[in-house]
């Protein structure tokens, strides 16, 4: 067995009395990948933050190559060769890709304080090539998509030749192609003898990458071992602490004739062309596509956030004015956006306030506009409880302090409370655990059961095939295929998603 590079012993961390990590003993070995799994809020990120010097443990010690390791801050961590890709993107949108990559130590012009721009650009190009991101190093990060930004984050750790690299859910905004690239990178690092921690809720990925597995539950290490001894069902049961029969609930038998959401001939130059789309009452329509296919843009137009040149949208026969989210909501439309941090949450506000936000007018008295707090909080806590959001108090704990997965649940809860006729969800299961995923699917299912229509955007084909009645494939701003459940077939759907781009490379 390879030599121990890093070890935790008896690490404990509590947030205001809530024990988040208690007594973690764990070892990392150079040249090996440790898959760290656990439900949302299990403490994975917290553990990594302790290691990365972001948080200080209450008890316990860490050793690096046998020597005691006590980081005063992130700087110390990177100084001692620990690279850290945070769960939330950590880029400076007002700087360029190159600058972001080298923000920690810029290449200098000799002894001068000036940045050696050419060297920086060249290094950056190599790295971008490594991770297969086709963009100039001088592109401002604000112009990149989350996916592309994630790649930049990865390039960042590659730049610092770290000996330990922590990946906290790096694939949440990557799609198949980039994930492949990432895995390739990780394998190369591993070959170089780097020790790696890989955190993800996509267990198949974990299996594919890891040598060892460690399972966290409620801040305790409940199981460790070699990957061979961890078939996915065992991972799940030890994460959740009980046996879970299936990963996907069967889609409800509730599809009705009436089309509840109808999109006709929607077009916007450069974004989408002649989109026809219908979601029936009780139906779950999956929308698949590669990153940048234009799904988000399309739904943003449908929902009324972006303008469109031609076409129209109707809900239950009533046309939407377009360009007016408020009207869309009144019309019965709901939209769970793909990045919860910027577009979803009021980070500093309590969970209940966040959940109440959309439905608020329904709890205000006419004229006076006075809010009926009791009813509001009852409803909000009710929803939070249904979604099994894990928090000390729904009324006081701020969304900021929630784990990634629980934050996502808050965003969904916010829309459920508005009782929508049609729910558009953009990548709703990004970064949430199997248990939570199953809950989300069930929630969507129940909603459909109750007669709502659901448009489910995802870059994970499995889940779409698992829960959708029908899958439409989007590609370059056009809908290039539609498959009934009976005709679901991985290869054909993928082919549709890739087709034009391959044509292009041919042409």
């Amino acid at each position: 067995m390879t030599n121990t590079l890093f070890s935790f012993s008896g690490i404990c961390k509590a947030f205001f009395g809530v024990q988040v990590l208690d007594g973690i003993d764990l070892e990392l070995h150079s040249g090996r990948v440790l898959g760290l799994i656990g439900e949302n809020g299990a403490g994975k990120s917290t553990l990594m933050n302790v290691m990365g010097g972001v948080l200080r443990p209450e008890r316990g010690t860490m050793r690096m190559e046998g020597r005691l390791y006590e980081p005063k801050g992130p700087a110390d961590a990177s100084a001692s060769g620990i690279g850290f890709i945070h769960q939330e993107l950590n880029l400076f949108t007002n700087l360029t890709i190159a600058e972001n990559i080298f923000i920690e130590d810029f290449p200098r012009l000799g002894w001068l304080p000036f940045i050696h721009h050419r060297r920086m650009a060249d290094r950056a190009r190599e790295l971008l090539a490594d991770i297969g991101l086709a963009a100039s190093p001088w592109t401002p990060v604000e112009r990149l998509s989350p996916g592309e930004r994630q790649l930049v984050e990865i390039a960042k750790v590659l730049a610092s030749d770290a000996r330990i690299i922590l990946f906290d859910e790096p694939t949440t905004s990557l799609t198949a192609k980039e994930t492949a690239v990432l895995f390739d990178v990780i394998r190369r690092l591993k070959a170089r003898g780097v020790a790696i921690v890989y955190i993800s809720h996509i267990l198949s990925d974990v299996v594919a990458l890891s040598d060892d597995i460690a399972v966290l539950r409620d801040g305790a290490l409940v199981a460790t071992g070699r990957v061979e001894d961890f078939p996915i069902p065992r991972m799940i049961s030890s994460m959740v602490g009980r046996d879970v029969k299936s990963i996907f609930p069967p889609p409800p038998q509730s599809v009705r004739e009436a089309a509840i959401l109808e999109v006709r001939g929607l077009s916007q130059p450069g974004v989408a062309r002649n989109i026809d789309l219908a979601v029936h009452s009780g139906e779950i329509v999956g929308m698949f596509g590669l990153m940048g296919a234009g799904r988000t843009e399309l739904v943003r137009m449908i929902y009324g956030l972006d303008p469109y040149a031609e076409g129209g949208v109707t809900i239950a026969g009533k046309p939407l004015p377009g360009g007016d989210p408020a009207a869309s909501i009144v019309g019965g439309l709901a939209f769970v956006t793909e990045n919860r941090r910027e577009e979803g949450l009021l980070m500093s506000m309590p969970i209940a306030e966040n959940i109440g936000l959309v439905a608020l007018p329904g709890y205000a008295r006419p004229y006076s506009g006075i809010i009926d707090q009791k009813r509001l909080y009852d409803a909000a806590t009710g929803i939070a409880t249904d979604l099994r959001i894990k928090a000390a108090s729904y009324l006081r704990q701020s969304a900021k302090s929630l784990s990634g997965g629980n934050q996502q649940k808050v965003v969904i809860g916010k829309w459920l409370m508005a009782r929508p006729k049609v729910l558009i969800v953009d990548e709703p299961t990004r970064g949430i655990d199997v248990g939570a995923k199953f809950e989300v699917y069930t929630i969507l299912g129940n909603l459909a059961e109750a007669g709502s229509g659901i448009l489910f955007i995802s870059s994970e084909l499995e889940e779409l095939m698992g829960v959708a009645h029908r899958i439409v494939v989007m590609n370059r701003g056009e809908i290039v295929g539609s498959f009934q459940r009976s005709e679901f077939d991985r290869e054909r759907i993928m082919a549709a998603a890739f087709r034009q781009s391959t044509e292009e490379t041919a042409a």
Partner: protein
Amino acid sequence: METQETNQVSGSYRTGGNRLSHAFGRMFLPRRDTISIGSLAKNALLSEYFVLYLSIAYMIVLWPIIPWMFGAQNVSDILSNMWPLLIIAIGQTFVLITAGIDLSQTSVMALTSVVGAMLMVGHVDPLLFSKSPVWGILLTEEGGLLSGYSLSFIFAIVAMLAIGALVGLFNGIAVAVFRMPAFIVTLVSMMFFSAIAVYLPKSENIQGLPEAYTSISSGSLLGIPYPLLLAVAVGVAAHILLSRTLYGRRLYAIGINPTASAISGIPTKRIVVLAYVISALCATLGAVLYSSRLEMGRPTLGDMQFIDIVGANVIAGVSLAGGKGKITWTLFGVFFFVLLANSLNLLNLPFYMIDIVKGAVILAAALLDVARNRAAIQSR
């Protein structure tokens, strides 16, 4: 585990009917955002009333040095200085919560006081005003348009409010619809409208306002001075608007995350515009009190006051970054500033010491406030 969790939550929720109100307050209490379960009430209390305690402590310290500080006369002075400033600062709070700032309030005060005076003034001296651009239109030797009418002052005040609202509307639209930076927009309208305020009467103060108007600041109802009544009315209305209504909730939401708010169907533009209108209206009411007290319309009214207005807000914890603020805080902040000014007047320091002492006291207050916050964090 999960079930316990939820039980505990709903439990604390049921037992905590009264904590509910706190829960809402808590949204913006902590400077550093953190969860507190045990020490919540204490912490809330601390952060809510700290500046008030501070002021009281300050008064107690001063008691022996300046006994007449608490003479009926002086106390009533302190209060009469407080009401107008309070009303204006409350308006500012609304804008600050949206992560904006309104530097134009002072110009609104000047402009409305001038126009109001021009409308209701009795007889004026042609020597002074014949050069005014509105001479013969708004203003003649027989006084303003409304002069003579018994209720002229009411119409005048209505007109003042209308003008204030227009200025606010202008600021709001520029900021919310055209996405212009609030600071520069309101700075410009400050230049612009105070210039107009000086231009209309060609620099002259307008005296000879009707009795009914000047008595607004001096008169009282059942022994309660009108300014106090007005301030309380505005304060209570603002407090309810912010803490209890749909509008208030949405205002905070916008201050914290405009994008998320817009996506959640909040009519962000309308709400922000309204905030600027409210700010300008409050400035106008302040102008009514000041000008009735000075018994004149002044083209330079409020010239120096911007710093006090925003300072009072910020010292009390209203954040320039938005999303954070409460009327009670503003009240305490204003009280602190007025008290400070008044005590400096009474202390009879030589003129070259006053500013130094004033600075020192503000600094001390801010320091204590920070220390208190740190303590509150640790105590968790």
